[in-house]
């Protein structure tokens, strides 16, 4: 009864203070004929008011049901309309707020001092930007009170957002947006998708009930991390809890995933004062127990949330509101300290990425230079929009660019990950046609419209009646794709064909430096590495007791997106085994070793140092272009140059070597096979395969 009285008083207060309204108050005398219904409606009001008055706006969505029931009884009450609008404004159904604010205003134009601001918000979130502008501008003339400057600042920001939105809606980007389906999404909030570079694994956060989340707190189940993989038909398997080593009774949320899908960043809430980042690795036994990322990343009393690894795994980008922030949450980075085996001191990324507002949802693309993040501080449509920025030659970041409407919307758009190809993006969104609450969606970037090709013909030769069709014009196409190659491999024992745990070293041959190394999945022998375009990569696969295997990928800067799949068969170190040294380079018709060969030679040298009894034969092979005699001599000289390096620079005894030139006698691909190839590039590739240096174990 006491609560009922409070509710009635509140409603009467609204009505009397702002007066001159057509609002129908919740008064017993008005609803004499509907006593029982009135009583129930007031009870609903009471319940809703309890939440509205005593809890933060993020909880107000829980008041909607009761307010709606009261509204069904008396839709003409201005304060009720206003409050219901407010509740919707703070829910996933933001655009529904508009109707209630409009009705509240109609019933009583003086309902609240900020009604024009709320109307502006309603219009803004309903993508009615011109109307929103009008309301915000009226609000600017009506601001009073202590917070006048802050409110003016906020309103002006929203006005700017509306102006930006008007422009962005005029120039939408072409996308398809597809719900990821029932195997991924649930009737509960599903969000924060993290995707492996090849889109074969998705890990995401869900607030659905589970063995770890059995009760709702504040109307929501706790966050849990789920995983799903593509099946053989490239469909998502049913999402499942990721691991009992990762899922906990409290909130556990995905923060980031390495491009190869083998390293996972998890956010664990640590009470009122914040939460921290942890890392879990995929191991033979499954996902490891997450480890704290350490003091240089996590700090007490700060929210250290989203994380993303650089393509080479050497730098960690993360979000934190710790001391040193430019305002709110910022993006920071920390480099891996190989000596101390920990993440080093963190640095705020600064301008132009971070602003006085919030930057969250960091995602580093495997191309090694593009960052995606969400911000409410950059030029956007409202709330959080998604931005990209590219690392420049001097390692600075370009001015962030809004990814564009309709991916960015007036609502909060956070957590966006992009496939290696750059064609697909994954994010969460609330849509009426979804599975319920927030769902995960895949965006397909269509790029600019593909222009059709037309043909004409002319009678260019007057005396010949047959017209000449216009020659095919090979126009350069504008293709929205990343300059990146993905190497997807599987490492197996050459004899048993069983998967091997191996280390994959990635080197920049032109600089002679080791870029990074990765472990294969021991269970499957699989690995995935990103090779951003513009480098000559040496890839070496090593496993104990086996000869190393080398591959070369010379990827031009404008190569576009390519995927390579390799099955690497590792040979045991034993007499008679041989391997091709793919990263030993010579200039055309010369036998001097090019500097790019250094990493491979060092590898070979190390093998000889590690195995002092090893004696090997180096052989040079050429293609069949040029005379046989010439090729014979050239191949011999080249084999000799390798031995000279290992002896002269490496200090290995010459007696441990034999070398020979094989010339063109032992091609990997025969001339007959090459002759059958259609394109010039295929043929050249085949010749390149035949030009090689090999070594064979003579004694061990």
């Amino acid at each position: 009864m006491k609560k009922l009285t409070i509710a009635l008083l509140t409603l009467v207060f609204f009505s009397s203070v702002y007066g001159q309204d057509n609002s129908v108050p919740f008064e017993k005398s008005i609803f004499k004929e509907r006593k029982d219904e009135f009583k129930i409606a007031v009870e609903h009001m009471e319940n809703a008011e309890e939440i509205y008055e005593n809890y933060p706006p993020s909880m107000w969505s829980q008041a909607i049901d009761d307010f709606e029931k009261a509204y069904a009884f008396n839709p003409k009450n201005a304060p009720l309309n206003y409050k219901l609008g407010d509740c919707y404004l703070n829910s996933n159904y933001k655009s529904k707020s508009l109707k209630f604010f409009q009705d509240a205003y109609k019933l009583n134009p003086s309902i609240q001092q900020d009604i024009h601001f709320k109307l502006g918000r309603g219009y803004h979130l309903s993508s009615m930007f011109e109307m929103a502008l009008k309301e915000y501008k009226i609000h600017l003339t009506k601001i009073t009170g202590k917070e006048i400057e802050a409110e003016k600042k906020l309103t002006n920001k929203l006005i700017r957002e509306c102006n930006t939105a008007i422009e962005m809606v005029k120039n939408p980007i072409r996308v398809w947006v597809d719900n990821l389906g029932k195997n991924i999404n649930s009737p509960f909030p599903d969000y924060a998708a993290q995707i492996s570079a090849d889109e074969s694994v998705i890990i995401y956060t869900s607030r659905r009930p589970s063995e770890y989340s059995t009760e709702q707190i504040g109307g929501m189940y706790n966050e849990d991390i789920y995983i799903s993989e593509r099946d053989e038909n490239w469909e998502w398997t049913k999402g499942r809890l990721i691991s009992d080593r990762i899922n906990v009774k409290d909130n556990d949320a995905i923060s980031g995933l390495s491009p190869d899908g083998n390293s996972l960043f998890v956010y664990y809430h640590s009470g009122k004062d914040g939460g921290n980042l942890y890392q879990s690795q995929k191991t033979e036994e499954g996902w490891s127990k997450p480890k704290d990322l350490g003091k240089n990343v996590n700090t007490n009393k700060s929210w250290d949330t989203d994380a993303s690894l650089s393509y080479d795994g050497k730098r960690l980008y993360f979000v934190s509101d710790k001391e040193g922030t430019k305002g709110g949450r910022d993006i920071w980075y920390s480099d891996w300290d190989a000596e101390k085996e920990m993440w080093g001191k963190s640095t705020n990324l600064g301008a132009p990425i971070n602003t006085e507002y919030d930057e969250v949802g960091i995602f580093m693309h495997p191309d090694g230079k593009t960052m995606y993040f969400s911000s409410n501080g950059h030029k956007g449509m409202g709330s959080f929009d998604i931005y990209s920025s590219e690392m420049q030659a001097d390692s600075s970041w370009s001015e962030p660019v809004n990814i564009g409407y309709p991916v960015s919307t007036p609502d909060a758009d956070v957590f966006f990950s992009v496939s290696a190809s750059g064609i697909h993006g994954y994010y969460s969104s609330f849509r009426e046609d979804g599975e319920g609450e927030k769902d995960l969606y895949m965006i397909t970037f269509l790029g600019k419209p593909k222009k059709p090709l037309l043909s004409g013909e002319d009678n260019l030769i007057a005396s010949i009646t047959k017209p000449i069709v216009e020659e095919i014009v090979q126009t350069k196409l504008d293709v929205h794709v990343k300059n990146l190659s993905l190497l997807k491999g599987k490492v197996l024992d050459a004899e048993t064909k069983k998967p091997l745990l191996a280390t994959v070293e990635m080197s920049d041959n032109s600089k002679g430096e080791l870029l990074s190394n990765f472990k294969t999945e021991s269970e499957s022998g699989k690995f995935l590495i990103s090779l951003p375009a513009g480098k000559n990569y040496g890839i070496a696969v090593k496993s104990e007791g086996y000869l190393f295997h080398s591959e070369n990928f010379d990827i031009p800067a404008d190569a576009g997106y390519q995927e390579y799949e390799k099955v690497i068969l590792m040979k045991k170190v034993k007499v008679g085994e041989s391997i091709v040294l793919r990263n030993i380079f010579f200039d055309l018709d010369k036998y001097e070793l090019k500097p790019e060969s250094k990493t491979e030679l060092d590898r070979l040298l190390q093998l000889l140092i590690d195995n002092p009894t090893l004696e090997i034969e180096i052989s040079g092979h050429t293609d069949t272009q040029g005379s046989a005699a010439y090729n014979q001599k050239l191949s011999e000289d080249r084999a000799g140059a390798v031995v000279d390096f290992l002896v002269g620079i490496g200090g290995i005894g010459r007696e441990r070597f034999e070398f020979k030139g094989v010339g063109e006698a032992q091609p990997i691909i025969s001339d007959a096979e090459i002759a059958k190839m259609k394109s010039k590039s295929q043929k050249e590739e085949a010749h390149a395969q035949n030009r090689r240096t090999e070594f064979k174990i003579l004694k061990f």
Partner: protein
Amino acid sequence: MIFYEDMRIKLLSIICLLLIGGNIKAQDSTFINKLDSLGGLDDSTKAIMTYNEGLDFMNSKKYSEAISKFNSALTLNPGLVDAKFSRGMSYMQLGSDDKAIGDWQTCIKDSASYEKAYTEIISYYFNKGDYKNCKPYLDKAKVLNPKESKYHYNEGVMHFVSNNLDSALLSYNQAIQLNSKNAYALNDRAGIYVKQGELDKAIQDYENSVKADGKLSFVYNNLGSAYRKKELYDKAIASYTKAVELDDKYAIAINNRGMAYFAKGEVDKAKADFDKAISLKIDYALAYNNRASVYIQKEEWNLAVKDCNRAIEIDSEYAYAYYNRGIAKEMLRDLDNACQDWNKSYELGLDAGKTHFNTWCNR
């Protein structure tokens, strides 16, 4: 008597001269017979007279009778080259090409400077597109009459067809220098300029060509295409329209005008032209493909696929139609088939097909 004899010879000589001049018609043969009866005509004179009778038959399109007369004339005088030449002309009319060529070749053998025979042989091979057989005769004809514009023109065409554009240009230059109103040569030289990307020079030549002969619809069409390539769409449309005014069944010009409208962004007018071109030429693959492009622009994907299908049915090697069908299928979210189409267009020589294939079809 001697006087009389002299008079008779002189009279016959005058008659022969008149006959050779073609001034005496076949119906005058009675008169000639009478003359013959006066003292007898020699074979040479009789051959000429018979030849003239043959010409009359030929002009009356009675080719078999003409051939018979030419044969008689040649029996009387095997060296009468004109009779061989005309017999060849008659054979050609009767479709006995080999006999015709044989006669003309004999003419050249008998008289190496008999230019008419060269001209006919050149025309014969040229029109058949048999430039290999044409060339030796053309070379000799050029030596016989280096000032004849049409020989240089023919030579230009032969170079043009074999894509030897620099040589073609030299020949056309020569042809135009000898006859600045050679509308054909001006048209063709412009064609070379188009191929070389020198559109201003092409436009200049096309404009001179239509000034020299304003009835050549194809020159207006070509001029339109040069303007279109220069993105001067209004001028292009005007020029195509002129071509269509001269020949309202000219599907090529109508299709080209559609392309100009398309480039100008007037897709409905473009579609109307492609419709018209198709109605004039039901197997016009290019127009189907172009109309598919309009449908793509209008995002009418199914109609685009349908028109591309027709274009491909007509010409299974038509790379553009596969490429465009790929675009439409992609937008219909039939990516597998879109990929197949882009790949096919690449196999047919369109690099753009490969670019799309690599971008969208990697998986």
